[in-house]
């Protein structure tokens, strides 16, 4: 299967990445090459193989629902690009 520029554009929107025309071109080539290599998996018949689930047998891990940390809005907001009082300030979402 050949990966097209349109295909790359579609994936870039899904991935929320703006790409320059040069990046579009080089990624189309790179991904096409890498996906071509992945094709070798089709040599294997896996119809009867269960998909991998977890490396070691593990049951549901449960714990008590208990507060272990203290509220500290300043510490959590210290890295925010923008804040307003005790809130993250974000761009307008609804027109």
């Amino acid at each position, binding site marked *: 299967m050949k990966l097209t520029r349109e295909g*790359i554009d*579609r*994936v*870039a*929107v*899904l*991935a*929320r*990445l*703006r*790409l*320059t025309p040069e*990046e579009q071109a080089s*990624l189309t080539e*790179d*991904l096409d*090459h*890498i*996906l071509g*290599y*992945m094709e*070798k*998996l*089709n040599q*294997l018949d*896996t119809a009867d*193989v*269960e*998909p*991998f689930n*977890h*490396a*070691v047998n*593990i049951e549901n*891990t449960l*714990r008590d629902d208990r507060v272990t*940390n203290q509220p*500290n809005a300043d*510490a*959590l907001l*210290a*890295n*925010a*690009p*923008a804040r307003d009082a005790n809130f*993250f300030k*974000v*761009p*307008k*979402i609804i027109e």
Partner: protein
Amino acid sequence: MSLAQLTLHEASDKLRKRELTSVELTEAVYQRIADTDDKVHAYLTLAREAALEQANRADEKLKQATDPAPLLGIPIALKDNFLTKGLRTTCASKILGDFIPPYDATTVDKVRSAGAVIIGKTNLDEFAMGSSVENSAFFATCNPWNLERIPGGSSGGSAAAVAADECIAALGTDTGGSIRQPAACCGIVGLKPTYGRVSRYGIIAFASSMDQVGPMTKDVRDAALLLEAIAGQDPADSTSINSSVPRYSAALNGDIKGLRLGIPKEYFVSGMQIEVGEAVRSAIRELEKHGAVIEEISLPHTEYAVAVYYIVATAEASSNLARYDGMRFGRRANGKDLIETYMISRDEGFGAEVKRRIMLGTYALSAGYYDAYYLKAQRVRTLIRKDFDAAFGRCDVIVTPTAPTTAFRLGEKTQDPLQMYLSDIYTISINLAGLPAISLPCGFDGEGMPIGLQIIGKHFDEATILRVADTYERATEWHKKKPRIQDR
């Protein structure tokens, strides 16, 4: 000899006997960094002031403690994808800006509680995606054995820091070989524990079904001591396993009589540097001399591991890295609407390899391709896991090279991502199957670059791989060789 050359257990002995203080040791490490790191470039951030405070506190404790923890007063380096409260954490990416974590990773909390001194944060490939540290958004790290070579990756900063004696020991993370391959490239010991053995809480996520924290050290005993300090179940990581943590250092008794070493025929094929094959075969003969028995085994799906890994790991990464949207932390660009703000923030913040992997992973998970790529890869992953289950019916550990070649030249593979991915060929199956594995030095090639021996164990059997590695190390001198750091 500089104090910075001491191993963890040597330094710990001297601290206990009061032949040395933690402050002296810490100062010696910073002196070594001042002398060599302008050539090696192992560190992104140093924490000198805080480290000397920690060293002072450790010295106070050493005066009072009757049986101090082995880590008390020991200067340690951390790969810069461990969250460290109050200390800048970049993951070698621009998208995090000057991120100052509000909390410590569980493993950081554990080494701090044991009294370790945090020297600084080491360089890596951006988001741990790479095999050479050339994908760091800041600068490349050089191999202390030859400054024109890569240190391996992604934990290349930690490996170079240990090899150059710019710390006593370090922690790294391993998703597809990121502890073991740089350990091999830099001539040190690196251990990736079983998936679930060590908490991942507070490690910046790359591929959550494979990421694991582990020690990078000057010898095998140090790896055992450091693993003891970080292993164990963590309520904050639901994938960490409730399994008792043995005293790994007590397992190092040098007795491997009758132990069965599996040698997978698929790992000794063309594409391997001749000297690597020779050194590993010679190491196997050395282990035979100590009573181990050789079993030829087969891991028939080995050739599919790179393809499986780069689908599964990139799919998980595309999902994990969705959180970098410029809203709650990191960089935010100004777009005309919300979607454009996301897209520009991520375009400006991520480097080329990270974008490549997000794109690949998003593609593999997208409608119409999910079954063909992601699901197919997870089915083949089951086959790879079953290969190991079958092999471990016939042997106790598996012995292989860590990497097909010694450290390559800076720039040699940056233009061909697939060639770069293939340098992980001997390490990634182990992450896919969730097994523990160790790399330790087993020789040098004709150009003086170190060669790594990989020993793979059964799930949760770190004790046996450490015992085999220690037995080999006692019989050899490779781990005692030090690089002479010369100008480029």
